[in-house]
């Protein structure tokens, strides 16, 4: 019996103008977005190779440039990659991993590029809301609801059929959008985006999360249609809810997070940092001056002098790290807390939850960026500083031989990667919020429909 009503729902939905418009919209927007994303991915890779040229080859400089590898699923969700400094310069004398220089991007400031998450988030959810906003109330106005309910079928079955039908249609549109996007990016990207088994698994997971998020909007539409008296009121309420979920809440969440977990302004922090560095520098310079004067008085040999000099440098580098690192860590912890709170609050909106989950799944979220910085810091402390200091010590500047031994080769850096299991564990919070919202809205719809007046 359910199947008959379900088939009717599907037939009505499939011939609906809404569905046709949504599919047409996706067919229109996705090629443009796929082209832009593929082009941007290629440009990012080109930029990375360009940066290798910038690595200085001069002998007396111990500097290395580490750039974060582009996450393979970058085209699905741009997230934070490319917006935060992804290239870090480590130098022997400096404590912090200094972010490198950025590009001027005026067109991006005016109109940020949509990726798949934006397209799905806007079009599929809008379609879901428009499709279901008059599911019950519209049928009542047209007079067909009493006809269906006069058939020997339970009330709940009718609502179940509507729900399942709408979800199936949303799923089909979503699948179409994702498939079209992935195929186009693979073709246009020219091999930068490979469809391996691992990638397909990740894409399936992403599509599931997208379906959960779009499903919330579908059930929202149906719930609204059981709450109001007229179809146009249902339309107004549905659109208002859509605007609230997609525009209003994602703007308010960072404000709340910033007031709950404030962070000191950037320049104030930089000034404090520089004040400490200046203290340390003054101390180091004065000790160097004393040592130079003492050595000259003793008429010391250049080798002895070099060793004494290295000792001073080693000691002061350690002190510099100790004094300044704490300040940097404190601020980073505050920033991290604020970001976590922002993402947690953002997940209350289904669209926000979708973006939060995608950030973790695609490797472009704040957690991945933090892991990258952690790995760089560890590399700096454990491999780079000892080896580069040793090379610096070997590299005696008063020896003018043209062939001065080997140039300094920095130790290799391996970027961290999160396993699938870790990623899935990270998206517990947004997914559970989505499921809770589903449960609430479905229960609401059933409860209201049980006592719905069909006249």
């Amino acid at each position, binding site marked *: 019996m359910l199947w008959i009503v379900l088939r009717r729902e599907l037939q009505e939905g499939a011939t609906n103008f809404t569905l046709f418009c949504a599919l047409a919209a996706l067919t229109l927007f996705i090629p443009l977005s796929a082209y832009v994303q593929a082009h941007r991915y290629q440009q990012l890779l080109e930029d990375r190779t360009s940066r290798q040229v910038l690595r200085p080859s001069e002998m007396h400089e111990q500097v290395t440039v580490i750039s974060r590898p582009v996450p393979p699923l970058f085209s699905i969700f741009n997230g934070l990659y490319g917006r935060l400094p992804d290239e870090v310069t480590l130098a022997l004398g400096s404590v912090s991993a200094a972010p490198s220089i950025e590009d001027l991007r005026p067109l991006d400031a005016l109109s940020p590029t949509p990726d798949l998450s934006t397209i799905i988030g806007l079009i599929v959810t809008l379609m879901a809301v428009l499709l279901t906003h008059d599911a019950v109330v519209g049928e009542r106005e047209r007079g067909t609801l009493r006809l269906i309910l006069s058939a020997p079928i339970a009330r709940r079955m009718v609502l179940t059929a509507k729900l399942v039908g709408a979800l199936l249609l949303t799923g089909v549109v979503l699948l179409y959008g994702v498939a079209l996007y992935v195929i186009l990016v693979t073709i246009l990207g020219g091999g930068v985006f490979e469809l391996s088994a691992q990638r397909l698994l990740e894409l399936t997971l992403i599509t599931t999360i997208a379906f959960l998020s779009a499903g919330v909007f579908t059930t929202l539409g149906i719930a609204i249609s059981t709450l109001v008296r007229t179809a146009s*009121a249902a339309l107004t309420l549905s659109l208002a809810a859509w605007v609230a979920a997609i525009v209003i809440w994602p703007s308010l969440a960072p404000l709340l997070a910033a007031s709950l977990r404030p962070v000191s302004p950037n320049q104030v922090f930089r000034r404090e940092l520089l004040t400490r560095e200046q203290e340390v520098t003054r101390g180091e310079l004065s000790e160097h001056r004393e040592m130079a004067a003492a050595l000259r008085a003793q008429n010391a040999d250049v080798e002895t002098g070099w060793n004494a000099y290295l000792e001073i440098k080693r000691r002061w580098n350690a002190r510099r790290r100790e004094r300044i690192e704490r300040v940097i860590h404190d601020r980073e912890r505050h920033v991290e807390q604020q970001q976590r709170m922002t993402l947690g609050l953002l997940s209350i909106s289904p669209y926000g939850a979708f973006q939060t989950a995608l950030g973790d799944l695609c490797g472009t979220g704040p957690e991945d960026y933090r892991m990258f910085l952690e790995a760089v810091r560890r590399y700096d402390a454990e491999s780079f500083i000892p080896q580069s200091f040793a090379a610096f010590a070997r590299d005696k500047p008063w020896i003018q031989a043209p062939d001065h031994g080997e140039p300094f080769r920095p130790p290799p850096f391996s970027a961290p990667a999160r396993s699938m299991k870790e990623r899935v564990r990270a998206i517990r919070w947004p997914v559970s919020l989505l499921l809770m919202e589903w449960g609430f809205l479905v229960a609401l719809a059933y409860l209201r429909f049980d006592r719905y007046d069909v006249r």
Partner: protein
Amino acid sequence: MLWWASSPTLCIARMEIAANIRNLKAPAALVILTALFLISAHLLAQDYQQRLVNWTANQTAQRDPIVGGVVRYELRGGHFYESLGVGHDPPMPPPTSLAVLVKGLEGDLDRPVTLATTILIGQPQEAAMRALAPIPDLAFVVKIIVSLLAFFLSVDVLTREKEAATLRMVLANPLRRRHVLLGKMLGTSASVLVPLAIAYASAVVFLFVVYGLFRNESEIMRLLLIGLGSAIYGLAFVHFGLLISTITTRTRTAVILGAFFWAAVVIVLPEGMMRVAEVFSPAPTYTQTRARIEQARRQILREANVRSQGELVADPRRAIYVIRLLEVDRQLMNEYLARKGGQLSLARRIGALSPATALAFGLSDLAGTGVRAYHAYLNVLRAGRDLMLDAYKRRFEASPEESTKALQEAARRTASLQRQPGSVAESTRAAIPALTSIVLWWAIAGVAAYWRFEQYDVR
């Protein structure tokens, strides 16, 4: 008030406004717009205050002394030296108060830039926070929500009356069809413009009273112009919606077609145009430019047969190579800045084709955060770098003390180069093409709706 009741057009307009209030569409528009404008104003005003704190700290830091020095170890058998230095962050441009309403290109300009013999561009401030969830400014709310609400109010104006069978009753009266359509245009426009005006006024008053912004005359002029631009945009979309209403027969079809059209014009077309501008006017990235400069530098070092730039600079016989280095740097950076500026100009010209992009460019120009301001900023960068470069080149002709003094003078003048906000007249002139294109779209939609309604089937 006889004139109010006697003109048929105004009668219809009054009926339309009353209907919009009764079915709660106009009140909903008022509530949504006021809420969004106030939220956006509050968020961006907080952001502005934080940027002001940032900038003040940055300016104070400019006066901090530079700590550093060189220690020479003169020993038996050789010598070496240690040089250390800690400076301060380079200066940042100050935030503009109108960016609270129309962010425009301000986000891209809000970065520290070092102007020496080359231009070193830093990263935008607070990138970590901003990247997670960008704050919508008033221009964004106008572009997306006002157009959506305008559609929402106007797209079923004719179809709902046709379905309720009241349209044929209205036309059965001794009225010309065009009076009916004009009345509906007027009524719907009023239902959109009045909430917009109230919401805008409340946001401005909120900013004025609570945050103390907009206290001088030129800012108030700009505010009025921005309001005018938003109103024209709203009107254009009202007439688009009416046009859709005249070509559809059922409300449902009209709503869906309206949503689709809105998404195409407001979301897809602007994006497409930016990409077209990128494709037809490509610009290298900063990294690519610096990589090319680095390659040229290595080439010159090889030709001069030295190992490092320090050796080159120290040797007065190699002056010509140093000058070549500096000139290559200047040329490549100028090319980079010129291409970026050109890309932006092309985007603005193409943007006139879509009302949404035209609005973005127009409003940002009116607020002083638009393309004109961006070009002015790029010019400031170039001018500062040229000052420093010319002073540096003189070291080969003058004595060391004179050249040091010249460098210090150039540094002082560079630091005082500020981005000029430009006058209101200049901003208006820059925004006129964009606003004209929106007015044209409005006219086209209105005329097309008028023409279609003459043959509209009211049964």
